[in-house]
């Protein structure tokens, strides 16, 4: 009777048995070319095919933001995107934020402001913040709240996250002026 609910939120890797399709895209700057199940979500592709486990699944229904990645410059819930829709796209995940063993300014500010507790929302939160700062380097407080409103966090109460994003915006501005 409740079985219909079971289908929609299956959380781990699943194979539909349909013919596989070829997916070409860039993930964190690397070219990826892989045959995939056509029903697979982008989230499952990242987690199970590429082993990029930083991106989390909190609901599988587009309601929590734990699976947020940057897709062609925009923050999206990867659980709602089919992997095959990523053909030709540029994808950035939490694993691509730091460069050569060096944390990004945003990550550093998350640490300094203690913008994380359990850490489960953190990768998605970082990606929403990154996408915001990329399109709007000096966001107002309300714009920050708006940008992360789709990312649920049960631990922090959001204040330290907002603070970290503000600080990162200031430091990135300084860095770009140098």
């Amino acid at each position, binding site marked *: 009777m409740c079985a219909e609910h079971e289908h929609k939120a299956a959380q781990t890797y699943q194979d539909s048995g349909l013919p596989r399709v070829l997916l070409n895209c860039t993930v964190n700057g690397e070219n990826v070319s892989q045959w995939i199940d056509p029903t697979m979500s982008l989230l499952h592709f990242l987690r199970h095919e590429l082993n990029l486990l930083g991106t989390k699944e909190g609901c599988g229904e587009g309601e929590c933001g734990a699976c947020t990645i940057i897709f062609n410059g925009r923050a999206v819930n990867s659980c709602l995107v089919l992997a095959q829709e990523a053909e030709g796209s540029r994808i950035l995940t939490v694993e691509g934020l730091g460069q050569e063993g060096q944390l990004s300014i945003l990550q550093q500010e998350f640490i300094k402001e*203690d913008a994380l507790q359990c*850490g489960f929302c953190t990768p998605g939160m970082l990606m929403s913040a990154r996408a915001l700062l990329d399109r709007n380097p000096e966001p107002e407080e309300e714009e920050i709240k708006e940008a992360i409103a789709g990312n649920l966090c049960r631990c922090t109460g959001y204040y330290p996250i907002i603070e970290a994003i503000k600080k990162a915006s200031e430091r990135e501005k300084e860095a770009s002026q140098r």
Partner: protein
Amino acid sequence: MTLVMEGRSEGAMREAGYRYVGHSPDRQEALEKVTGRARYVHDMELPGMLYAKMLHSPYAHAEILSLDVSEAKALPGVKAVLTGRELPYLLGLYMVDKPILAQHKVRYQGEPVAAVAAVDTRTAAKALSLIKVEYQPLPAVLSVEEALTGGVLVHEDINTLDYVKGVFFPQPNSNIASWHKTIKGDIQKGFAQAELTIENEWRLPQVAHVPLETHVVIVQADPYSPKVKIWSSSQSPFAVRNLLAKAFGISRGDITVVVPYIGGGFGGKAGIHLEPLGVVLSRVCQGRPVKIQATREEEFNQLPTREGLRGRVKTGVTKDGKIVAEEIYFDWDGGAYADYSVNVGRAAGYAGAGPYEIPNIELHSRTLYTNKVFGTAYRGFGHLETHWVIERQMDLAAQALEMDPYEFRMKNLLREGATTITGEKITAHSGCVDQCLEAVAKEIAWTGYQSAAEREKAFKTGKVRGKGLAVLHKAPAMPPNTSTSAIMQMDEDGTVRLLLGAIDMGQGAYTTMAQIAAEVLDMPLEKVKVIWENDTDKNPYDWQTVASKYTFMGGNAVIRCAQDLLRQMKEVAACVLRCPVDELTHGNERIRHIQHQDKAIAFKDLALGYAYQNGTGIGGPLIGRGVYMAEGLTNLDPATGQGLPALDWTYGAHGAEIEIDVETGEIHVLKIASAFDVGQVINRKLAVGQVVGGVIQGLGSALIEGYKYSPEGRLLNPSFTDNKIPTAKDIPDRVVPIFIENPQRDGPFGARGVGEHPMISVPSVLANAVYDALGVNFYELPLSPERIVSGLARQKE
């Protein structure tokens, strides 16, 4: 403008000059978490792993007439199908009442009736759809009123259920899982003295924990022996081990529970949940690892939640505002199984009257079975709920007396020399709730309720403002003989590895313990490493990570552990330096003579034992041990509830300022000031994090959250779409954390716990502010816009 103040300290603050205690070092695991490398059970896969899924009851209460799993079993890829028929086990922390899968009947909509393990989730889900279940629906018990009539029994076998005797009190032939009584003084006499009696009824619904990582386990059960290995997103690895051993009649030694990073708990991951099902499934599958991860819907609808509550209070006061008598009935909507709710009911028995001195009291706390999702521990352990009742009642008492609620509270708060309702004496070192209240009143510039004329005037502008106050207290709810332990080892470069029994689920326990260790050893914090991933085979024992007890208990154990390490180093150093042990001290990572500073040995040269120049060795690898067991607590008298339940009380208060849109009924919170007497802040940044995070979680309970059921008992909002939690757009303009530091003599560096407290009394303070703004009292949560608007409409009539 910064949103959150630094977390300033007020009161008897000391200039202790600590190296780490009271400072704000970054959390130890921050790097793993901002790079996406922290691994949760959610992320784990093992070779040969199977995936399990569960089939749920569509009915709140029904007989299972037949269950046909033959087609599901025949589906290729399905490795096991289990139903309650094959699992004759009952589990329970306090009442042994819960099957692994429903047996004979279902007691809530969402209860699992069958489980499948298969090669992938899609096959598992397909198999579920092939299971045929025939139900005979039964009348369901869906409210505390229905539960109390006892016309329909949720547990028809209540008279024969096993339970912890002397601590819990199930009532025969009823839905009362436990009836806890606290009786002090003589309420007859007390009410006879009263010049005014205030009587009210208050309610709040069940509320979900919402950890971002849903419940998840991987279990590998050896088919040839009783050995079981479990990876679980759990707050209670040692409790899981203990309860599993009891349920299956196997040895603790055969069970290993491993907890890596956990994505939030809030009480919902205390106790035991999906683990037993994992064990039986893996066994049937010849020991292949089985992963069970709850979907978000299951998180709402199958796994436990916070109890609902109806509280009825009668308070007798004198004209000058002294409470002389109180009668309280807490009726807990505990859902289908007792789990922690009976203990929540017990905690309400000793703390449910709030931080007030009440000479005559009778308090009844009844945990009731209903046909709803069952209740469990939830951050605050019943105290948010009881303080919703009491802190609203105190404002109504003040209203009836036409007295400033600040003054009224100040007249009745527990202070040095007072006794609690269980007969415990409050001392100068118990903490000061009056200082907390004073601090928040000052912070929001409290001057008393506004007048009716002032309200009237504001009303015309469409936006009305109001202020409110509320206090709180909570002690760890735990057995009187609860204990914890720590082990410390030193490596040859002088690095210390610290093994703890508790879980760090983001509250920062490991970071604060490292600070305490570094403080006692007087060595660099960077050289103290707490071993992540708690493993019951390797880590020393801790009861479980609940109750805001770990800063206190773990902190004391770590202090003793570090002292043990120092003692061992000094003993060896005394031989080498040829001096008595008591002439040695430590500092700068060295053991040195108190007078002759050059007579010294570096920690690292003692780490594996000291080697003389000629190669001879003395001592050996350093392993420190430290334990802490709760001291001086007692069981409570079964008839009167008198006794000593509290290791330490953390007191607090909130002051709030809000603005209400009278058209839409929407509440905008301008400011919440929150003060807690934490004794001593260990990590300021983390303490602030607990306060602001807790306040926002409390805000959810106050304004937005709550389970809704259909008349048949179907949960109507088991998703984020319909069961919202606060987002970044819902937070107050400002939160001001204030720490009062009156040291607890037996706490580590004087500290008390503060993990749960910030969410307690948030609903009460907001409803008190709503009264100030509108002149309307609300008796039920959440304070949704609809409720506010209809309350206003009623008032106009």
